[in-house]
């Protein structure tokens, strides 16, 4: 399945490891929350990138400072209409300061990509051959944003303020 990371199609070199499967010695491995909670000490020993797969019913707050141990956190949209992962993403980015890869999995459709991106996702499993093309197109559809998130986009209010300040400077105020 195509993985879009930072806007381009990338090889997914992460391996999702089942709870009862042997963890590979090295390489990028994604484990479930359950496994993390049960085998934390052991997993912390592992000297290779670790990823976490969170169900959309999980509370990211329970991870606390542990978020920084993960190079990848994968969140899930079981149906595109189930929007819980948007809040999980914002909590991870904005309350817990998570800076690793935040991946959208599940039913990830073109018409929700911009919202996901705004909520803090930077990687997307998009099940279509033209994934990169539609990702780029989707992100360009809107350029005005009313509300702040952790993304880099200026809100309309910021733009207005910037404009006012420029005009005030021009008027010598």
């Amino acid at each position: 399945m195509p993985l879009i990371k930072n806007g381009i199609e990338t090889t997914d070199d992460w391996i999702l490891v089942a709870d009862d499967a042997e963890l590979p010695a090295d390489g990028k491995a994604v484990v479930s929350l359950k496994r993390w909670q049960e085998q934390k000490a052991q997993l912390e020993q592992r000297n290779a990138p670790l990823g976490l797969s969170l169900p959309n019913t999980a509370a990211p707050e329970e991870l606390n400072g542990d978020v920084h141990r993960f190079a990848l956190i994968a969140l899930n949209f079981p149906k595109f209409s189930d929007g819980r992962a948007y809040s999980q993403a914002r909590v991870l980015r904005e309350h817990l300061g998570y800076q690793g890869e935040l991946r959208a999995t599940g039913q990830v459709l073109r018409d929700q990509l911009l919202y996901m991106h705004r909520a803090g996702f930077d990687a997307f499993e998009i099940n279509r051959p033209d994934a990169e093309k539609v990702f780029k197109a989707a992100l360009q559809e809107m350029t005005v944003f009313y509300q702040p998130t952790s993304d880099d986009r200026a809100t309309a209010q910021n733009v207005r303020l910037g404009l006012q300040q420029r005009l005030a400077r021009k008027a010598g105020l």
Partner: protein
Amino acid sequence: MYRYDPLDQQLIDERLAQFRGQVERRVSGELSEDEFKPLRLQNGLYLQLHAYMLRVAIPYGTLASHQLRGLARVASRYDRGWGHFTTRQNIQFNWIKLEDAPEALAVLAEVQMHAIQTSGNCIRNTTTDQYAGVAADEIEDPRVWCEIIRQWSTFHPEFAFLPRKFKIAVTGSPHDRAAVRVHDIGLRMLKNDAGETGFEVFVGGGLGRSPFIGKTIRSFLPKQHLLSYLEAILRVYNRYGRRDNLYKARIKILVHETGIEKIREDVEAEWALIKDGALKLPQDVIDGITAQFAPPAYADLPAAPPAALLEGLRQDRDFAHWHRQNVVKHRQAGYAIVNISLKEEGKPPGDITADQLAAVADLAERYSFGEARVTHEQNLVLPHVAQADLPVLWRALKAQGLATPNIGLVSDIIACPGMDYCALANTRSIPIAQAIALRFKNWQRAQDIGELKIKISGCINACGHHHVGHIGILGVDKAGEEFFQITIGGSASDDAALGDLIGPALNEQDALHAIDTLVETYLGLRQEGERFLDTYRRVGLAPFKEKVYAAH
């Protein structure tokens, strides 16, 4: 009134282009109906009993003349020449083609209108008092806050796929004309002991299958924290609202099942993390939006009624009736608030023709500084009319069938479109509404009865707000026949209450007879100055129930 700047305009233009693309992808088959449906709903396009229906947003019920003309154009060009105002201050067009929807939205975008988030599991239109900015009893203009909420909630990326729809209402007056206590979030402006203005925040109100009056989650919220607090509530709801059962997915169920104390705890914990962040409203932003709602350039008029008005009242009894019933005191000396009744005898309540829309546009321009309002009771308002203009305005309204003198009276009925239009309905509601209005057409009788708010819903979704009618009527299907369940004692105001069922459902004839009986019972029992609602509150259900069901 809020004026769009180029950014606001760009946003709706971009949204229109996005929707056009989505329609094209649907027609080509790239998008399935399952994938397209939430997208078209978030652009207000429903599939109804006869056709697609477009619900156009009228943010906090405020309209400028050029916008009324835009609505008239859509009604004429893309619909069958009329529209219907709803209990959320929006307007619906019932015969829109999917292939025309982008064009109709383009006509609207030219007048700064749209159908964004008028459906779907997202934050809907924020509604308010139709007398905002002009009511004599107002603490502050709630539209400032509605506009702030509108911007924050439009395309909010986190809250586009909530468990269910989300409705917010704001009142700036202690007399709540916005039904805030039956909304998912209700905001009531008030002053604290230090004289500062803030909000009492209610959460978990709502009608429908499981009606609830909202509970106070915070008794005083300072203004600058409005958005961060709303965000905290929405985040808790998005995370914990039920998604297993469509009928248990509103925040009212979450509040009911979890308890207001735990919800408050969760919300306040979330709020503590965000209240001093980017959502905190700087005073200059508040001031900037407030300035957009500055009063129009009122003339310096004497408070006393001018000769032209007094003469009119003396000469014309019909004008006097209309003045008494439809005209309300204004906070500015010499001005009046004019209610335009869309409850003309023989017409479906809340409907308006393209010609009437154009006429109201002209009258608003001439007599109301170019501004009109929509009420959640499906009428219109001209908010700034000089008293001397009332007679000539009335004549013009009369010529358009817009001067029925029945605001707040028994024939000023709220009715959902019902089974004549809506695929969800169990019964029709328009015919029974018209039949009731006809029974009480005599003005003297209606006056004598006084304030009586009848609200009719064709199904349990309660779009007609029947739970909070002084008399509420709910259509039910009994073995394929239309039956009506009657409640009494509801109120949508600051004394919010849900009506009590008087007894088993009745067929249409019996229901009409029951309404007569309820009115007669009230007239027989009332004391000086009591409205129907007051008498009911004093004597209780029993006398009414007995009389109605005596014959059964």
